[in-house]
């Protein structure tokens, strides 16, 4: 049913730490690896070794250069996957009922057996979180690794999304945003976690934790006057000679 549940008991989602993310793309690979053999059809690639390769990924990592008004420019890596929106426009536009949001935990999923591959849900998503599988003609999106997080066949520590498990810097956190005491809720509250494009009214569940404040150059150089000692004697001579070469 593509009408949205009025309330979800849990709000499972990710808190993504833009401070720690180093842009290594491990989550991209982990996600593709797991979901290639998990929920639904495999994530196909077209022409993977050719001149113009293309394929489906449920998670992509961008890199941005950000120039603050004062201080040095920063590189900020920016993972982008489904935000499991509370008011998900991708769900309500679906004509077949293939797209749905689960009332129990808020995960947004596609029932591939009912998907006609019209692509309308991908248009409706402002975040580019849905990609059509060119081989199977069905819509693919992040499942929040629904086949891991409840999977009793996996050891306890693996019952979290592949991207979270695979991240070497611990930049992705998984949990329940409906519970104010959960790890992700507390992290988000402490670090000023924010939603993407909230004015579009999608009410995303995922939160992005902004990079921590960086040192600005003049703060970093409190010792600068001490380092600026004029060399004299032999050191001074060496300094002058080397400076001329």
């Amino acid at each position: 049913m593509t009408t949205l549940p009025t309330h979800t008991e849990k709000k499972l989602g990710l808190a993504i730490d833009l401070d720690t993310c180093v842009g290594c793309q491990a989550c991209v690979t982990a996600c593709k690896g797991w979901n290639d053999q998990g929920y639904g059809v495999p994530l196909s690639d077209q022409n993977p070794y050719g001149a113009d390769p293309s394929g489906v990924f449920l998670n992509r990592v961008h890199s941005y250069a950000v120039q603050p008004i004062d201080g040095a420019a920063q590189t900020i890596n920016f993972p982008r996957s489904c935000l499991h929106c509370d008011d998900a426009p991708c769900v309500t536009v679906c004509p077949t009922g293939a797209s749905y949001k689960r009332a129990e935990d808020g995960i947004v999923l596609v029932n591939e057996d009912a998907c006609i591959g019209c692509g309308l849900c991908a248009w409706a998503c402002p975040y580019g979180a849905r990609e059509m599988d060119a081989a199977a003609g069905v819509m693919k999106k992040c499942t929040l690794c629904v086949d891991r997080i409840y999977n009793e066949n996996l050891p306890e520590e693996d019952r979290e999304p592949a991207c979270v498990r695979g991240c070497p810097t611990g930049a992705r956190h998984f949990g329940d945003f409906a519970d104010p005491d959960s790890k992700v809720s507390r992290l988000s509250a402490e670090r000023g976690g924010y939603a993407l494009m909230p004015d579009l009214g999608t009410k995303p569940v995922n939160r992005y934790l902004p990079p921590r404040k960086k040192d600005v150059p003049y703060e970093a150089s409190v010792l600068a006057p001490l380092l600026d000692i004029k060399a004299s004697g032999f050191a001074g001579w060496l300094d002058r000679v080397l400076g001329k070469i």
Partner: protein
Amino acid sequence: MHPAPSVILFSVLSGAGFGLLFYLGFGLAHPSGWAAFLWWGLGYALAVIGLSASTFHLGNPQRALLAFSQWRSSWLSREAWTSVAALVLLAPMALSDWLGLGLPRGFGWPGAVLALGTVFTTSMIYAQIKAVPRWHLWLTPVMFLTFALAGGAVLAGQSFAPVLLAVLLVVLLAIWQVGDGQFARRAQTLGTATGLDRIGTVTVFEQAHTAGNYLLREMIFVVGRKHAQKLRGLAMVLTCLLPAVALAISTGWWAFVAAAVCHITGALAARWLFFAEAEHVVGLFYGKR
């Protein structure tokens, strides 16, 4: 947005077809005998060809029947219902006109209303998408409905067709004028999309992937916009001006055919622009629109 030929063809042909069926259903045009067969046949053919063209871009058209299930929330599903309902409800009227059964004209009215309703549901599929600011506009349904009414009037040989073509011209100018500023009015930038504007000015340092993907192909269509102004001019001349002139100077069959062909060709150009010029906010993440 990627201007898929199947979708352009679908929306133009079925729009004109349902427009024609609207006039036939309401009895504003009431041919009889074999003329009725031809006119109703044209309306049905355009509508059905259009609808079947729309299945060409589906990944799994064999499941298309499922698209009738979600009318509560989905405009695409509502379109499926209204189109089929219109075609079914108009059938007795069409038969009556053809075979001279003398059914009261009122029988055609519900179908006529649904024919326009179908065009409205089609337009709402686009107008509902907030992520495409140029489409998310009340002018979008107005434009689709005017297209159907004007195109239908041309095809139905209505004497007031030139007036509706003039109205269509105004609507086109309005939607282009307002549409051009829509993205800016939404005030979304790479900075707001990523939320990184709270730190500073954001530019793309490195793309997320070196090769193309579905998003870039489907939603971040940037080729061909440079000729947009010329195409707009062409669309106005072909869609509105030439047909209006042809219909004004002659009532002969050649004027009718020329007007119809010109109008549909122009409509295809205008619909191509409707897609090609529409920018999806996801392009912001890629620093492209």
